[in-house]
């Protein structure tokens, strides 16, 4: 009998150790980034462009570029994603076509980000002749996060009770109006939280924008969607691997990483908080 309990305590220790290791990993990463990066952060760092071949100055253009790319990704991914989810949950009849669409979405979700980058390069940059631009980058990022948004929206729509739809339809309200006035408003919070996580991902991705939108240095801020931009993830990558002055720019690299992490984790935390709030205040 004692042997059984001994085995159990060994197991439980392993389990707790795993939890601890994982937490330490996160903690360690955040700690090192913060520790090495915070001294570089200043108002100037965020609002001024780089100078002296990136060894001094700020990263403002990269922040702006990331904002533009992320907004672009949202503009493309969110409406398409919600519309796809609405079709799949509200209008689709079971059958081969619907199954094919769902398989397609699953496959799309599994495509590696570098392959998305190749796609963006081959199709948007070269074939459609958009060139390396905010447009090409946003399209690539938008399609990258599309499956995430579809998944979150589908879940949110499914969680709206069927009885609401029945009640609305039985009153002689059309299907679209039922969807628009009852289903979507009640699914909105779920759609938003799921989408915010997808947006956080778009902000942090490097491979999809490497060949489609990002430039190491732009002398001025973008004036149109056909311009290239600097971007935070790309800035980190280039400064730390290919810049002319890797050691000297090291503090700036840490600072950029810190800003990027703050932005992405900030976005994620907002989503988590909204989700917790929505759960507590469920209206039905």
């Amino acid at each position, binding site marked *: 009998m004692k042997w059984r309990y001994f085995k159990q305590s060994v197991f439980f220790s392993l389990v707790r150790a795993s939890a601890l290791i994982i937490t330490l990993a996160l903690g360690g990463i955040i700690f090192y980034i913060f520790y090495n990066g915070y001294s570089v952060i200043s108002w100037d760092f965020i609002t001024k462009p780089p100078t002296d071949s990136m060894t001094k100055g700020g990263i403002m253009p990269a922040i702006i570029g990331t904002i533009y790319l992320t907004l672009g990704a949202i503009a493309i991914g969110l409406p398409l994603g919600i519309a796809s989810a609405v079709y799949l949950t509200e209008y689709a*009849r*079971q059958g081969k076509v619907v199954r094919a669409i769902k398989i397609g979405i699953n496959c799309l979700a599994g495509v590696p980000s570098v392959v998305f980058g190749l796609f963006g390069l081959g199709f948007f940059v070269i074939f459609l002749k958009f060139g390396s631009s905010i447009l090409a980058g946003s399209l690539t990022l938008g399609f990258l996060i599309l499956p995430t948004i579809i998944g979150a929206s589908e879940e949110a729509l499914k969680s709206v*009770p069927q*009885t*609401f*739809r*029945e*009640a*609305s*339809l*039985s*009153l*002689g*309200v*059309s299907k679209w*109006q039922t969807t628009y*006035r*009852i289903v979507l408003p*009640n699914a909105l919070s779920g759609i938003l939280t799921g989408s915010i996580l997808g947006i956080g991902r778009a902000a942090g991705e490097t491979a999809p924008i490497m060949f489609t939108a990002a430039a190491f240095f732009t002398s001025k801020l973008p004036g149109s969607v056909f311009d290239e931009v600097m971007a935070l993830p790309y800035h980190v990558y280039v400064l730390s691997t290919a810049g002319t002055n890797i050691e000297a720019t090291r503090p700036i690299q840490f600072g950029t990483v810190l800003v990027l992490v703050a932005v992405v984790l900030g976005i994620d935390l907002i989503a988590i908080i909204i989700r917790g709030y929505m759960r507590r205040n469920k*209206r*039905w």
Partner: protein
Amino acid sequence: MVVMGGKEIIQLDDVNFYYGECRALSNISMKFVKNKVTALIGPSGCGKSTLLRVLNRMNDLIDGTKVEGKIFFEGKNIYAPDVDPVEIRRKIGMVFQKPNPFPKTIYNNISYGPKLAGLGVEDMDTLVEQSLRQAVLWDEVKNILNKSAMNLSGGQQQRLCIARALAMKPDVLLMDEPTSALDPISTAKIEELIEALKKDYTIIIVTHNMQQAARISDETAFFYMGNLIEYNKTEKIFTNPDMKQTEDYITGRFG
């Protein structure tokens, strides 16, 4: 074909209904009389709820269902290809077994349907009050119209759903076991209001509760395994039914 005295408002002509391969309703022919309360009774799974949903085409929402035969309302077959189910549902309303108010205010629950149907209501406030009075709910909620409907009790919610359906001014009101989820007091209130409603509406009510059917209905139809066994005045069904099966069910020999 069983014919009642009085004007008929809905007529079923040899109707069959299928869930996929399974036939849930067989050769149903009957006429529903205007401004009367007709009860549909029978054991579980006999098809009475299915029949109700066939009348306002709510079964269209389920994949794989098929309707054969004709159902005439206002002289037209509601299953004709050029008929819009949305129009049907505005004239044939429904109240469900479990109360299902929208997570909106009481006022907005009632005004939702008329607003979207574009009924051109000049005075929505009057319509809301009228509907709530007909559902015997006005006095209880007149001061909390802008509070959420989800805060009401079960019985109040169901009366709200009735008011909501009445706000569309339908000709027929279908009720699918409307009191089976409610306590006896709420049940009694709703039975009372049904009695009052039949002046202006035709009511078809599915119920598991035979005593309820005997209390409130004028006509009763007894179903068994998808077939219409007997359809007659309520008094006759409950005191002197023609078919043995009906009698067995009424006396509780099977449930």
